[in-house]
């Protein structure tokens, strides 16, 4: 054995120190549990820290924003795939959870009138109420609060530069599994940690790095949450549902993949064009992200893509309008300051001024599926009415969990997701650990076996390098498992994965124990492969386009058809896939939702076809209205898609 094995014992192990992890750790510790937090990045460096920092807090904009309203918004946006118990829990806890983050130093602007935090002037896309609160310094402000919540408490132990390698489970008498502990590679000290614990909270984020550099997220999102939980026997839900942001930058390399704009910032007259400048999508500001991404990728597929495999976002008409053009530029700069900052640095002056077209391409942003849990973040499994075969003592929160968003995630909901479910997971993990003490000495063997496997990798001979194989996986995932899919490509992905798996034994890994980058790359590569396989199989099962999953070879799945989620899990030598029926929203509400959607597209079309003078006048009024809005609160009809600002006027 080359890396020494160090034993540790805690009640609760929390993996990750983003929003979900730090909230879980703080809450579990407050409940009296002994807690260890491990993170592969430095403390609190995470998607949470680099986010735009906009968070959903129910009833922050108007008192009539009930729990049902918020929960319903999530369900409708998610195509009825979300678990209604989970959306209800989100709606119930959002205020309380947000205040807990505030107690650690998050300071929103306080309204002089309501004496409460002030949400943005208009509801964000898909929200029917104003309830999205922005923060100075964006996600960095959340980063500080999360850092504080862990550092302030001497009862919480934490270790940076630690990679969770595998979760270790034992078998119960009734054939179910329980958490025994976890094996962790401590790169900083060059040790393997054998953490014996009754509860584990997986809060280790998403998988977008499998599409690098076509992503705007942190490097560490290599699917660790999903792969590690699945290897331990957990079920995953909705793994085909990944959110791509359509308008991201294509060059230069330092900016590739970063956010440039959103459908809403394309504003009233923005359109998408192919390389021949032909319009491929209009009414962009009303479209969903998935629609925009699909339009771009279709053009690329037909050979009409731009140099860097994207399309052109044309906002010149907005800019050219004599009166409203000025407002448009202010609107663009003000609505997504950090995205516009990327554009300003990466593009030419005329492009940044919207006098020229922007070359854009989708980027992976968020995994809407994840570890299957109930509203208390407990791992669950099996069909309705049958025995629950989830893993006892396994909890998931934040991007790692599934069931809150289904097919589509509304803006500003993830930071709140981290707080709400981080706290729930922490509480329930502490509670679970309370009733369990010590370790069965027989389990020691399980740790030793896993440790032996890792140790056999140290000094492995070979001619391949994991960092390079990673690049090939990223390329293939983009091509075949990306924003547009079909059966042939998905099967190609499966084949590619099984071929890549065979290469692992020829990966060269050095002898060093401290920060062995080759070993780190290897462990992450393995997680990327496992995750991609599970995704490909879920994506084959859903043979129709829905939300973040676009199938070029099948029709759209209608809002009115019976909704189901996909479930995947590893079984001996393969992957098991199943469908989990979901509750459908009342027909009445669905029809209203569809109707509102259609009405808006018609409105956008009428506007576009108006003569310039008229159009300019209408637009000037609209911009004035949305940009000067103070009080009272504005609401729009249920079912608005992407940020439905101002369209009250024309309808």
């Amino acid at each position: 054995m080359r890396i020494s094995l160090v034993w540790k014992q805690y009640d609760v192990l929390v993996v990750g120190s983003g929003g979900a992890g730090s909230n879980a750790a703080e809450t579990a510790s407050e409940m009296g549990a002994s807690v260890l937090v491990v993170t592969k990045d430095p403390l609190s460096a995470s998607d949470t820290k680099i986010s735009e920092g906009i968070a959903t807090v129910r009833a922050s904009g108007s008192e009539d924003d009930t729990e049902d309203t918020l929960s319903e918004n999530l369900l409708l946006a998610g195509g009825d795939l979300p678990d209604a118990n989970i959306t209800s829990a989100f709606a119930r806890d959002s205020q309380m959870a947000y205040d807990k983050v505030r107690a650690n130093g998050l300071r929103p602007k306080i309204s002089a009138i309501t004496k409460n935090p002030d949400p943005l002037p208009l509801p964000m896309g898909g929200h029917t109420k104003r309830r999205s609160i922005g923060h100075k310094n964006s996600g960095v402000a959340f980063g500080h609060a999360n850092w504080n919540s862990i550092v302030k408490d001497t009862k919480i132990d934490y270790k940076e530069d630690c990679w969770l390698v595998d979760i270790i489970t034992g078998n119960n008498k009734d054939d179910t599994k329980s958490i025994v502990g976890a094996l962790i590679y401590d790169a900083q000290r060059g040790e393997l940690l054998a953490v014996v614990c009754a509860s584990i909270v997986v809060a280790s984020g998403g998988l977008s790095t499998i599409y690098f550099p076509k992503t705007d997220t942190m490097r560490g999102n290599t699917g660790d949450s999903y792969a590690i939980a699945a290897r331990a026997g957990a079920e995953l839900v909705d793994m085909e549902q990944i959110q791509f942001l359509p308008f991201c930058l294509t060059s230069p390399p330092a900016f590739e993949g970063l956010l440039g704009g959103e459908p809403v910032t394309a504003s009233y007259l923005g359109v998408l064009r192919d390389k021949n400048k032909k319009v491929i999508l209009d009414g962009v500001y009303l479209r969903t992200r998935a629609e925009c991404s699909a339009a771009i990728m279709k053009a690329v597929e037909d050979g009409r893509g731009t140099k860097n495999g994207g399309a052109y976002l044309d906002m010149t008409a907005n800019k050219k309008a004599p009166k409203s053009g000025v407002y448009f530029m202010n609107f663009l700069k003000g609505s997504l300051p950090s995205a516009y900052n990327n554009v300003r640095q990466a593009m030419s002056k005329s492009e940044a001024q919207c006098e020229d077209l922007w070359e854009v391409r989708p980027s992976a942003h968020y995994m809407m599926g994840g570890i299957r849990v109930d509203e208390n973040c407990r791992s669950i499994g099996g069909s309705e009415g049958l025995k629950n075969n989830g893993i006892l003592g396994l909890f998931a929160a934040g991007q790692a969990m599934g069931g809150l968003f289904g097919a589509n995630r509304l803006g500003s909901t993830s930071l709140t997701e981290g707080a709400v479910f981080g706290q729930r997971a922490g509480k329930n993990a502490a509670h679970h650990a309370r009733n369990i003490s010590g370790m069965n000495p027989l389990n020691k063997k399980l740790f030793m076996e896993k440790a032996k496997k890792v140790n056999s990798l140290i000094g492995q001979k070979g001619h391949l390098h994991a960092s390079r194989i990673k690049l090939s996986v990223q390329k293939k995932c983009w091509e075949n498992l990306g924003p547009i899919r079909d059966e042939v490509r998905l099967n190609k992905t499966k084949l590619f994965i099984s071929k890549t798996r065979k290469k692992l034994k020829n990966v060269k890994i050095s002898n060093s124990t401290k920060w062995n980058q080759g070993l780190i790359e290897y462990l992450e590569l393995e997680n990327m492969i496992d995750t991609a396989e599970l995704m490909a199989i879920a994506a084959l099962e859903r043979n129709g386009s829905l939300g973040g999953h676009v199938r070029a070879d099948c029709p759209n799945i209608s809002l009115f058809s019976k909704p189901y989620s996909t479930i995947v899990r590893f079984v001996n030598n393969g992957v098991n896939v199943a469908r989990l029926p979901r509750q459908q929203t009342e027909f009445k509400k669905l029809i209203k939702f569809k109707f509102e959607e259609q009405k808006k597209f018609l409105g956008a079309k009428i506007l576009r076809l108006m003569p310039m003078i008229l159009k300019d006048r209408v637009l000037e009024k609209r911009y004035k209205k949305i940009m000067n809005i103070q009080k009272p609160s504005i609401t729009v009809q249920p079912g608005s898609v992407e940020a439905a600002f101002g369209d009250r006027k024309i309808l």
Partner: protein
Amino acid sequence: MTKKETRDRQYLNVTIVTHSEGKDMPVNFKYKKRHDREKPMALDVLLQAQETKLPDLAFRYGCRARNCGVCTIDINGLPRIACRSVVRENDKLKAMSTLPVITDLVVRRDQISRQLRGKIYRNSGGNDLNVDASEDYHELTSCIECYACLHNCPMHQKNSIDQSESNESYEYGNPFSLLKLQTIVMDPVSSNSQKNDAITQAVNLGLDTCLNCPGCKCGIGIDLKGKVVDPLITASKKIADEQF
């Protein structure tokens, strides 16, 4: 143009100082530009080096957008945020000199946060949260924790920056730790005793060193002298006066 000139325009020569088992090893690396006018960032160079010549090169990065604060390295001896620092011909990329190196460009960071363990935001619940924070508070919380400010800080230099495992938390402070403490002083939600506590912590970390120091420099432009160090010195003097 001669062949050599064309080639020179396509490449950029840099030195990457790798590190393993306590020893530095400089490696010359030719960065291949994507086009003549490309001005690559240090992170672009490291990523290409890992893709080509040095597959196991160790370095930290996260967001590629100057938000996460983990990619700081020394370029020609000065701390720079790698994802947003342009590299020039013959530049030398090396691990930060102010913290112990683990492997290649990766330094150990957590002795800094541990020096504040249990010393911030205790008992902050229960206070009225609905009060506006000042612009200064928000300036301080724009800190991305890149540790560029450790460079040339006489207080931080009093620590023994070694690799010993027992050195879990540094005795003496640094501009970042002072910033975290001053954040509590600036926080409108903090009680007076919490504020006094924070000021006392600053003194315990060696605030007196700042008296003879020209001041610190922040990697992203926070006014550390004006908004952190000077106010802490003034406040600590006041507390001292009150005690005598």
